[in-house]
C-alpha cells in the first residue's frame, strides 16, 4: 500500500462495498419491525448495546423482554406481528392488509434512518412516553397527506 495518503483521503479507493441485507421474507420482516420499534418500543441508547441489536432469530416478543429461546410460533398468525405490520402499513400510506405484500417489502427496503420509529426512554419499561408512542404518531399522521403548501422552487 502507499506509504502516505492525501490528508483528505480523496485518493483512497473504497473497498468492495458490502450490501445491506434486504427484507425479503417473514423472518427479515419481523426483524425489521422489531428493530425499528414497530413491534414494541425500542431503547435507543448507545450504552444499552444489546437491547437494540437486531434480533437474529426473533420469534415471539414477550411483554417488555425479547426472548429468542421462546417456542417458535407461526409468524403469520402472531397477532403482535400482524398488529405491527398494520401500524407500519398505515403510517407509510400503504394498504393496511396485515400481510407481507410486495408494497410493504419495498417500503421496508427503502433507504432509511437507523433511529427506531418508536423509542422508549431507557429507564421506562412500561408504556412509552406520550411523546414517543405510536398512538401519538397516529394522531400526528392525521394530516399525513397534507402536502407542503409551498414546496421550494429554487435550490438553495
Amino acid at each position, binding site marked *: 500500500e502507499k506509504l502516505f495518503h492525501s490528508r483528505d483521503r480523496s485518493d483512497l479507493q473504497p473497498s468492495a462495498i458490502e450490501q445491506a441485507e*434486504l427484507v425479503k421474507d417473514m423472518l427479515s420482516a419481523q426483524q425489521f419491525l422489531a428493530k425499528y420499534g414497530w413491534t414494541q418500543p425500542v431503547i435507543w441508547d*448507545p450504552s444499552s448495546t444489546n437491547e437494540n441489536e437486531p434480533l437474529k432469530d426473533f420469534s415471539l416478543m414477550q411483554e417488555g423482554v425479547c426472548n429468542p429461546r421462546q417456542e417458535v410460533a407461526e409468524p403469520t398468525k402472531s397477532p403482535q406481528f400482524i398488529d405491527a405490520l398494520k401500524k407500519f402499513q398505515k403510517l407509510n400510506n400503504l394498504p393496511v392488509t396485515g400481510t407481507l405484500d410486495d408494497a410493504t417489502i419495498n417500503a421496508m427496503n427503502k*433507504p432509511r*434512518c437507523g433511529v427506531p420509529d418508536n423509542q422508549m426512554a431507557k429507564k421506562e419499561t412500561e408504556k412509552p412516553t406520550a411523546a414517543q408512542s405510536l398512538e401519538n404518531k397516529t394522531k400526528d*399522521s392525521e394530516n399525513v397527506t397534507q402536502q407542503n403548501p*409551498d414546496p421550494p422552487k*429554487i435550490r*438553495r
Partner: protein
Amino acid sequence: KRFLDMLMYSNKYREEQEALQKSTGKVFTKKLLKWRMIGEGYSNQLSINEQRYVFRLAFRMWSEVMPLDFEEDNTSPLSQIDIKLGFGRGRHLGCSRAFDGSGQEFAHAWFLGDIHFDDDEHFTAPSSEHGISLLKVAAHEIGHVLGLSHIHRVGSIMQPNYIPQDSGFELDLSDRRAIQNLYGSCEGPFDTAFDWIYKEKNQYGELVVRYNTYFFRNSWYWMYENRSNRTRYGDPLAIANGWHGIPVQNIDAFVHVWTWTRDASYFFKGTQYWRYDSENDKAYAEDAQGKSYPRLISEGFPGIPSPINAAYFDRRRQYIYFFRDSQVFAFDINRNRVAPDFPKRILDFFPAVAANNHPKGNIDVAYYSYTYSSLFLFKGKEFWKVVSDKDRRQNPSLPYNGLFPRRAISQQWFDICNVHPSLLKI
C-alpha cells in the same frame, strides 16, 4: 483528576439532559451549540470541505427556524462539543450499532449528539442529482439530536425513509412548529421594518406596484413572504450584500415618502440619513442640489432631533412621524418643517386602548404594513397595532390613533431567526 472531573461532568451533564428531554422533549438548554466533524470519521466520497459545507448548511437550516445557534468548534475539549458528526462503515467509531452496508440504513443519531453516516451509502453534495443527499440526511439526523422523533408526514424532513428530492428541500411549516414546540419561537427586537415598494410590468405589460416586506436587525435583514407567513428561504442575509451605500448595521429607520408628486426613500442612522435609489438599488451619492449623502438629519429635516428611534410616512397627512424617546414629531414634507403642536407625547398621540398597555417610549420600529393596512409600533419582542380607519368604522368607540394591546411579534411574523455569524456567509 482532570480526566475524572471530565467524566463526572459528562455523566452529570448527560443525566441532566436525559431528565430535561423526558420532561420537556428538548435536549439542550444552551442557546449556542458547538459541533465538530470527528477527525477519524471523514467520508471517503466527498472532500472534507464539501462535508463541512454541507454540515454548515444543515445547521444553518435549523437555526433559521429556531432560537438556537450552531458553531463549529475544533479546539475545545471533546466534552464541551454538543454534536459530533462522522462517517463510518459497518462497525464504526466505537458505536454500538453497526451499519449494514450499502442500502437500508444510511445514518443514525444518538441522544447525546453523536451523528454517524454510513459511508457505504452513496452520499452526494446538494448540487448533485444522484445518490443520497448528505444535506437532507444531515438535517434529518440533526433533528433527532435536537429531540425530534420520526414524523410520518409527507413533506417532513423527519420521515424515516429517504425521499429523493428534485429541487431543493426546506423545513416546512410542521417541522418548524415541531422544533419550536421544543425550543420556542425566535424573538428579539428589530432595528426597523418596512414594505419596500417597487414598480414592474405584469404579463400584460401593465405597470403594477408591488412591495417586499423587510425586517432589519444588527447587520442582517430578512425578506418576509407575507403569503407564506415565513421569511424567504435562506435568510437572513448581510445588509452589506443586499443594500448598497447605506450603513451595514443598526439602521434606525426607513421612510418612503410617496405622494402624487414625490417618491423618495430614506434610511436613517444616528445623526445622518441616506436617500435610496429604488430603481438602481443603491444609495444616492448626492441630492438634487449636489450635496453629498449622507446628510445631517437636522439639515434635511429641520427641527427633528437625532438620533431617532423610528419613523414612518403618513401618506394621507403627508407627514413623516419621527419617534424619539417618549416623544413623536410630525414633519410636514410640503412646508419642510415640524408641524404645529409637535412634538407630542407618544402616550397622548397614540393613546392606549387598554389601560396601561402601551410602549410609552423608546420604540424600536414604526412599521406601516400594506398587508394589514395598518401601522404597528414595535418595542422589544412585542408590537402594538394602531387603530386604523377600518377598525374605527367597525367600532367608533375606539380612540383615534389608539394602540391595541400588545402582542408578540413572533405570533404575527413567524420564524424571523438569527443565525450564528459563522454561518451567515454560506
